[in-house]
């Protein structure tokens, strides 16, 4: 009953066998990159509607309290806002480059670009942290007495500011965690030249985070 495969010494047949096994395993994996991508896009549409609802609320309030919004927005730090915009746009570039590199089989470049993307995400969050704490130091925080003493429109502006950039920052944190997982997959080789859909879908998520910010930035920082 001894297995003849084990008893045979390692020879040419061994490498042939692994080669054969690899060929056999492919049809059993049922990888469907297009299907996976469609699923990701459908999820992104739900995200679009989630933020869309908040943008809708913003539009309604802005039409109602146009002047208060301008006054409140003038207190936001334009330099930090612009810096964060450039950081996120650049992180989108490095994300796209990371995918482009693995498509060409350049693992090291792909890892480097992914690391850069994660670094930019962290930089964005650090700047956001300083921005928020600066506001808190000036007494502007959700439900703070100083904020509540202001006109209605300004209270609503900051309510929208904290909830929308807060929800966005949460997405940046989640995106960063996803990208860290992708980094591990990339290093372990489960993301490769022939199978990189995981990285591609994470990239789609990351670009969505960038897209939302492209609209948040002019709507909160560029009112004069």
């Amino acid at each position, binding site marked *: 009953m001894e297995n003849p495969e084990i008893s045979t010494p390692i020879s040419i047949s061994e490498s042939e066998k692994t080669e054969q096994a690899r060929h056999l395993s492919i049809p059993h994996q049922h990888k469907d*990159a297009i299907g996976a991508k469609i699923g990701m*896009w459908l999820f992104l549409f739900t995200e679009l509607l989630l933020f869309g609802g908040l943008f809708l609320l913003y539009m*309604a309030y802005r039409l109602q309290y146009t002047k208060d919004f301008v006054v409140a927005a003038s207190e936001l730090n334009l330099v930090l806002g612009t810096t964060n915009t450039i950081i996120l*746009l650049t992180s989108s*570039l490095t994300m796209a480059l990371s995918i482009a590199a693995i498509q060409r089989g350049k693992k090291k470049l792909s890892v480097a670009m992914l690391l850069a993307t994660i670094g930019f995400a962290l930089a964005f969050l650090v700047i956001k942290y300083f921005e928020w704490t600066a506001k808190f130091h000036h007494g502007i925080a959700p439900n703070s007495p100083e904020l509540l003493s202001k006109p209605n429109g300004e209270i609503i502006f900051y309510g929208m500011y904290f909830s929308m950039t807060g929800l966005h920052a949460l997405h940046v944190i989640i995106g960063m965690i996803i990208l860290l997982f992708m980094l591990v997959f990339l290093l372990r080789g489960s993301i490769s030249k022939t199978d990189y859909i995981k990285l591609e879908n994470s990239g789609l998520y990351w670009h969505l985070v960038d897209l939302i910010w492209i609209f948040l930035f002019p709507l909160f920082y560029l009112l*004069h």
Partner: protein
Amino acid sequence: MEKEHKEHLIPYGTYFLVWLSLISLTVLTVTVAGIELGRIALFVALAIAFVKSTLVVSYFMHIKFDDLIFRFFLLVALVTLASIFILTATDIFFR
């Protein structure tokens, strides 16, 4: 099925050009915001944001190179979102 293996390799340079355009548009939108444009200011800012997001979706998110079905999906999602916005805006204006 035959399309599945025809992967489009987009040159690195294309991505750099898109990034450069995005940065330029950001500089433009910040500069324009400093000018007194009155009521048009919001529309100018939104128009620039739309151009920027089109660039991100087309190139970074590969919509330009993917199957047509993705463009169709995106269109349905955007039309839905746009109708919600237009209906709400008309409601606010004619109240």
